[in-house]
């Protein structure tokens, strides 16, 4: 199982000091956080894509290429890459390029984006969100899987004899996760292709995540990629920890109360009860996270959100220390002990290249 962090790249005022970091400062902070993730032994760093303030990350492959050059082991991913407003040709090229630069340490999570005004900035319309996600991904798959592509569709100019370059590293395209909070169609898409399904998980009650994952798993089996419990599932999580549980609550509360996504609404206690948010001791985070398995089954990737809502860099780095030293080693051991042998590990480039070499006939199309 892989453990890591995901960031939305928000630039948010620290509510306890009133100070807002500059773009330059926040961008450097995120690079520091990524390097720290590797240093403390986490597996994955995932970065969002946004095209409007207060977010900085408009160009995740640029940032991830820089992170790749400064790390050795860290798996680089996105949270998410916009499959609706990006040209699939450019996604195919950018992520294949990143895959080469990073020595295969790349996968990506596709999402639709939920901000209506962003779509027309890229020549699209949010009302076509699902059809765009379906058509663009169908093209992206072909661009990666087929050397020469003839293609025509509804949303972009046709392609004649087009070859996307560079070709995927070792002939194996980056693994794709499909992220969705509420659209079963996207879970169906993930299942159809045998790709991974990532449930954001952190902003909604667990019953909702459970239902989406159940649906994805049953459709994964329906489409013939293996049994339902072999489907590839990722979950988000949101934590804030201090050795003493009450200290964590006191320190995090002003950030919670003012947070862009849920601030000025429910109390920290109510939101912690309704969603997977866990504010407390490392032991509480361990227990809560192990509990996720009770309603989604054995899963492959757990990403935590730790650097949002204006939390200062120093605090975020302390959170990563606690995750790396006290939480993830225990989770790794406990989850591994529970996982049956037929449930696959999280996909990596090396494993997928090896799998392809073992079954050369059936996959080479």
């Amino acid at each position, binding site marked *: 199982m892989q453990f890591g962090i995901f960031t939305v790249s928000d630039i948010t005022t620290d509510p306890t000091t009133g100070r807002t970091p500059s773009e330059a400062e926040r961008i450097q902070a995120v690079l520091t956080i990524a390097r720290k993730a590797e240093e403390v032994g986490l597996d994955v760093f995932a970065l969002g894509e946004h095209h409007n303030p207060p977010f900085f990350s408009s160009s995740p492959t640029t940032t991830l290429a820089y992170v790749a050059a400064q790390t050795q082991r860290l798996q680089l991913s996105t949270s998410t890459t916009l499959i609706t407003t990006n040209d699939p040709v450019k996604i195919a090229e950018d992520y294949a390029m990143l895959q080469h630069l990073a020595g295969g340490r790349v996968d990506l999570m596709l999402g639709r984006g939920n901000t209506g005004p962003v779509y027309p900035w890229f020549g699209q319309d949010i009302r076509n969100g699902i059809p765009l996600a379906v058509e663009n991904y169908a093209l992206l798959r072909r661009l990666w899987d087929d050397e020469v592509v003839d293609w025509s569709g509804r949303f972009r100019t046709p392609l004649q004899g087009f070859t996307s370059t560079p070709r995927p590293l070792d002939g194996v395209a980056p693994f794709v996760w499909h992220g969705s909070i509420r659209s079963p169609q996207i879970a*169906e*898409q993930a299942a159809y292709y045998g790709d991974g399904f990532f449930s954001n998980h952190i902003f909604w009650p667990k019953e909702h995540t459970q239902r989406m994952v159940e649906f994805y798993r049953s459709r994964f089996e329906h489409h013939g990629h293996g049994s339902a419990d072999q489907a590839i599932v990722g979950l988000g999580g949101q934590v804030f920890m201090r050795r003493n549980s009450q200290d964590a609550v006191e320190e995090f509360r002003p950030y919670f109360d003012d947070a862009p996504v849920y601030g000025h609404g429910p109390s920290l206690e109510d939101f912690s009860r309704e969603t997977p948010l866990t504010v407390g001791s490392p032991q509480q985070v361990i227990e809560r996270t192990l509990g996720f398995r009770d309603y989604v089954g054995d899963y492959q990737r757990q990403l935590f959100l730790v650097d949002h809502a204006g939390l200062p860099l120093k605090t975020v780095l302390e959170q990563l220390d606690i995750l790396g030293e006290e939480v993830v080693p225990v989770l790794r051991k406990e989850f591994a002990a529970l996982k049956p042998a037929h449930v696959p590990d999280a996909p990596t480039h090396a494993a997928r290249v090896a799998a392809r070499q073992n079954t050369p006939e059936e996959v080479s199309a």
Partner: protein
Amino acid sequence: MTTRTLAVVSAGLSVPSSTRLLADRLTTATVAALRERGEDATVEVVELREHARDVADAFVTGFSNAALRAAVETVTGADALIAVTPVFTASYSGLFKSFVDVLEKDALTGKPVLLAATAGTARHSLVLEHAMRPLFSYLRAVTVPTAVFAASEDWAGGDGTSAELSGRITRAAGELADVVTGRPASARPADPFADVPSFEQLLRGEA
């Protein structure tokens, strides 16, 4: 004997409130009207005052918490709905509308609904027709023709207004019972996962 579930939403804020009082009279009359037609009813009341913060939280977080989900399921799963709001500033109260905003857009499609409102003066009575009924028409609910309005004078008695209110209550309850008894017992709302198009349909652009 068929047993129907009757959901009652009251947006009154004081305890006790005239809005709840009107809701209770409509409920009693509807249960009686169903009995006359040979059907039983169980009643579940949703007092929106108890969910005022839950509703505000749902706007901020994008999801309904457990308590609010239970209230929403009471309403969406019932065979019929009695919806009663006080008139605030020429319309239904903000809390009433906010609760309706939390419902999924198809949650009340085809649902028999009796509309009612209370206010300090009869001059607000058309709120039922210019605000309440269009709201429920948009949601494709089946509103019964008689909507019941009660102003302060209707509770005062003495000059015949109380008797007229009772008459309106009985007529509205009868209309609601007529609609309900003509229908099969309510199924729970459609499962959003049950009719997800297959990926082949998605690829053909059929969904």
